[in-house]
């Protein structure tokens, strides 16, 4: 095997593609392609996070992250990660600072769906400037 530009690049590219497959993790810019690979076997894989927002007029609505230009998926990941790191209060504070002043109160809920029922857990109610 000759050590030329072609062989070096071929090796880097193929290794780059195979290593994430072996380690089962994303290594940018070579990524793992595990999207939707795991079959849904556990209830926890169905969990969703929702937020009820209350404005200064006392109106309560389901918070839509797209209103602040963020995709629901990205927002869901953030919500979930802060919750599992026990940082929901920090999440709420950041959310208040990221949205308009009219948002006064948020209620964070975690929903898990299984075959028999839907479990809802109220993570917390957070107020602006609390």
């Amino acid at each position, binding site marked *: 095997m000759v050590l030329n530009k072609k062989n070096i690049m071929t090796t880097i*590219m193929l290794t780059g*593609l195979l290593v994430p*497959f072996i380690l089962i993790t994303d290594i940018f810019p070579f990524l793992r392609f595990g999207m939707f690979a795991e079959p849904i076997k556990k209830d926890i894989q169905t969990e969703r996070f929702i937020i009820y927002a209350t404005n200064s007029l006392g109106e309560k609505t389901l918070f839509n992250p797209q209103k602040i230009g963020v995709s629901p998926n990205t927002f869901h990941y953030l919500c979930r990660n802060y919750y599992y790191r026990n940082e929901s209060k920090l999440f709420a504070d950041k959310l208040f600072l*990221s949205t308009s002043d009219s948002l006064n109160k948020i209620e964070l809920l975690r929903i898990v769906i299984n075959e028999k029922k839907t479990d809802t857990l109220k993570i917390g109610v957070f107020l602006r400037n609390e």
Partner: protein
Amino acid sequence: MEFFSEMNNLSKNSILFVLAFLPLIGILIHYFYLRPAIVYAYQGESDAFIKIVLDTLYPRFYVEKERFDLAFFLTKADQVIYRSSIVYYCLLSFLYFYKKKEYFQERANAFFYTETNVKSISVLRIIFFSYFIYLSYELVDELIAKQSLRLFYKPFHFLSLANIPFPNTYTIITIGIIWTSLHILIILNKKTLLCTILSLTIFLLCQCWTFSFEKTDHGYATITYVFLLFPFLLDEQTKNTLLFKSWSLQLMRISIAMVYLLSSLEKIVTSQFSWLNPDNLKTYLSFHETALSKIVIQSDVLCFLFSVGSITIQLSFILIVFFPRLKWIWIIGGIIFHTGTLLLMNIGILLNPWILVYIFFFDWANVYDFFSDKFRKEKRFSN
């Protein structure tokens, strides 16, 4: 002399024997050190080495350990061992046949080159970077939208090492203008190689910024691999005659096909075909509900057929590099697959980069000739 030849053969066989049993060491380390270490890490008592490994390679562990039981992580670790063994033995077999069988060596060498021509690469360059004008707009738009989340910014990989902050709107717009100008220069074939490398750098940087909100997006995977190799294709083009054999173009094709292959293997290795169970797709569809998915979700047969179709396309896509004449089977299959993902799960965009990269499986010389003839005729007419 015969003695030395025999000794030589004996030592070669010994090396082969050692190489064949080398993974055993990895398996022993796994069972006697890594598995217990995972149990400790799960209980929050990782040693320094495991902590570095987790922080670097699997930071999601700290969130996922709250969501899943210990068995989930032990199975994942076992998978790493199975997968590395599979890859190792495939590579070892390849090297063995490459050294031993002359015919195999010739075929392997021929495999890593594809015949192409300068005209085709010129058209590829124009299509690819015209598309990038659109894609850069999409990425810049996404980064501007993420301004509202800047407090949640958590620098990703090298952004964190280099301590690079999240850019403000003006910086993003400036980057967008520079980026588009680079694409125009590339299309016009001015300072092409330099502009391509700069554009690639901006592309990687922008992706890093978008991934810095605790979610990695795989939407740009294949186009990133192709882009990483594009400067080499341009370099080859300038150093060759009109017709030549290209390794970079063939490597682009292999990389695209490998993404599909690894994606399907991931599904099979992880779920052993229980992934085909209609309930599985139903649950995923319910997460990403669209008008069409509401209908599909009602039918077990449709859910099963869509799952089988997806995995068949992904698993067989690699054949496109071995049977280029039959490429339309996988190109049409891939277009249906990605359009289906968009319609059923609202994942991806209409001008999908996964579909765009299929242009690298075609020869565009005829298109070049058609337009250059037309241009020549028009010029003659106007003169």
